[in-house]
């Protein structure tokens, strides 16, 4: 597994910042969409290779979002996104709290899962792109309200 450690994330970030301020990647920026950076704590309790499922557990809550390519913003089809959270049916570390889905032709993913409940101070979800063709990204979106019944998170991926 090639999960980015904090060190590699910081190193990549620092390197990007350096090249960006040096003007080396100005053409890429001019072209548009910057890749989504991994969020702090995004990979916490990640259990790689969860199965692709129609629904995690009993459902009732919707996690959705889009996946696009960095630069030109082309929607990416067939991208595997893994999702997990502390829900009414289990802790983040539980296997049954994890599931994955694929994006459709317009780069949209949508997976039903149990209701996310506040844990470790915030109601939040976790999403991972970790399939190798693009650089790995872990997201940790926070729900504006713990009563929400859906949450979205968008990926812009950088080819590996």
């Amino acid at each position, binding site marked *: 597994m090639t999960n980015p450690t904090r060190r590699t994330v910081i190193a990549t970030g620092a390197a990007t910042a350096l090249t960006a301020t040096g003007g080396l990647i100005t053409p890429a920026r001019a072209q548009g969409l910057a890749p989504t950076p991994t969020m*702090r704590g995004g990979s916490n309790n990640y259990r790689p290779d969860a199965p692709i499922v129609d629904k995690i557990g009993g459902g009732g809550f919707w996690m959705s979002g889009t996946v696009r390519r960095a630069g030109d913003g082309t929607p990416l089809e067939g991208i595997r996104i893994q999702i997990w959270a502390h829900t009414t049916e289990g*802790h983040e570390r539980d296997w049954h709290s994890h599931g994955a889905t694929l994006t459709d032709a317009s780069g949209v993913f949508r997976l039903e899962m149990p209701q996310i409940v*506040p844990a*470790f*101070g915030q109601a939040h979800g976790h999403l991972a792109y970790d399939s190798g063709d693009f650089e790995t990204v872990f997201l940790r979106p926070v729900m504006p309200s713990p009563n929400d019944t859906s949450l979205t998170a968008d990926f812009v991926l950088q080819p590996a």
Partner: protein
Amino acid sequence: MIRSVAIWAGLGIATLVPIAIAATSPLLQWREPVYIIAGFAGVIALANLLLQPLLAMGVLPGLSAQQTRRTHRILGALLVAAIVVHVGGLWITSPPDVIDALTFTSPTPFSAWGVIAMWAAFSAAALALIRKRLKIRPTLWRIGHTILVSIIAIGTIIHAILIDGTMGITSKLALCALVALALGLAIRTLRPWAGLKRRSTTQN
């Protein structure tokens, strides 16, 4: 007599009602026992912070001066124990989240405040243990202890308020306000810096 009953009853309500509300939180049904215990250790630690300044002031009725000092020390030790259970229980529940908090790399701002309060509490306890061997002036000791306990109280209050947890919002805010009030009153009454002023006046 009536006054002392009223004070103890008031304290009982102020500390036990938030704990009782936490005990009926719907969040508990989706948590494992070790996570529940960790959460309660946090609530108990917060309630503890209301009693400590009052004991320091010696205003709790029915306790002799010696009993007051002993209770203050015992509650100080219990605070450290509660923090250890809180952090330990959270660690067992989700190790990476606690490692992020302890290394100040957590995405959640409240965890840093909790960790700061934790280190302040450990420092205050360690200094209390070696107080006699330190052989520092009582005034300096009081100022140092006051700074540390202020960090504990303020850090804990911010930590608690920012968290979406088992305590009810109203009871949490009320208990936090009382903790801040008790701390402020204790500092104003005990004037830990008073010895400094007196000394500098005599020197002049």
